[in-house]
């Protein structure tokens, strides 16, 4: 069963305007790679060069912060909803 990935409009520039996608993969990294295959550049917005979740991006698998479940290696159960939400940050 595929997983659903929800994104805010802030990321739609790399998904061709889509904010709700279906993807497959056993881990978060695989789910992101599946989307990146269709929308090149997506993975670079979510993962850093070493493959971890970028510091100013937050990813949830269902109710859980993916960082608390192993980061990009977190398991993504069939039928899960994954949400990718950029941080809101700045300062003087």
């Amino acid at each position: 069963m595929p997983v659903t990935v929800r994104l805010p409009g802030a990321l739609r520039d790399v998904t061709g305007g889509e904010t709700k996608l279906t993807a497959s993969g056993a881990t978060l990294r695989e789910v992101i790679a599946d989307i990146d295959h269709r929308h090149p550049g997506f993975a670079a917005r979510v993962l850093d060069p070493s493959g971890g979740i970028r510091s100013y991006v937050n990813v949830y698998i269902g109710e859980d912060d993916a960082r608390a479940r192993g980061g990009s290696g977190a398991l993504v159960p069939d039928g899960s909803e994954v949400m990718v939400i950029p941080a809101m940050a700045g300062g003087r």
Partner: protein
Amino acid sequence: MRLVLPRNLRDEIVAHAREAAPQECCGLLLGEDEVVRRVLRCRNVHPTPETRYVIDQAQVFDAFRESRDFDRELVAIYHSHPRSPAYPSPTDRAEAQWPEAGYVLISLRAESPEIYAYRIGEKSVREIPLVEE
């Protein structure tokens, strides 16, 4: 493009900025398209909140998950500059990741607070008119 911020909500974010000073306050301005209907005060979880802000991701997650159309509901992100102008700093520009939202800045450097709104794109900052209604 403009941003409609009713007087009572403007007063609310100024009050938030004053209560948080000398730290930066932050939050979401929620409503519909360009019209703000409510203020969601958020926690600034940056370790040096006197000069930086990061909105508590749990509050953003809850707002995103509970909204039927978050992109339409998120009118702007606000934060304060306790001692510097109400203009996006290099850090504000570098860390802005919401090009479709407005960014509202409140400066407390003068006795009378200054409030301005902007769009912050990857390579540009554009002021947008801030009106009461």
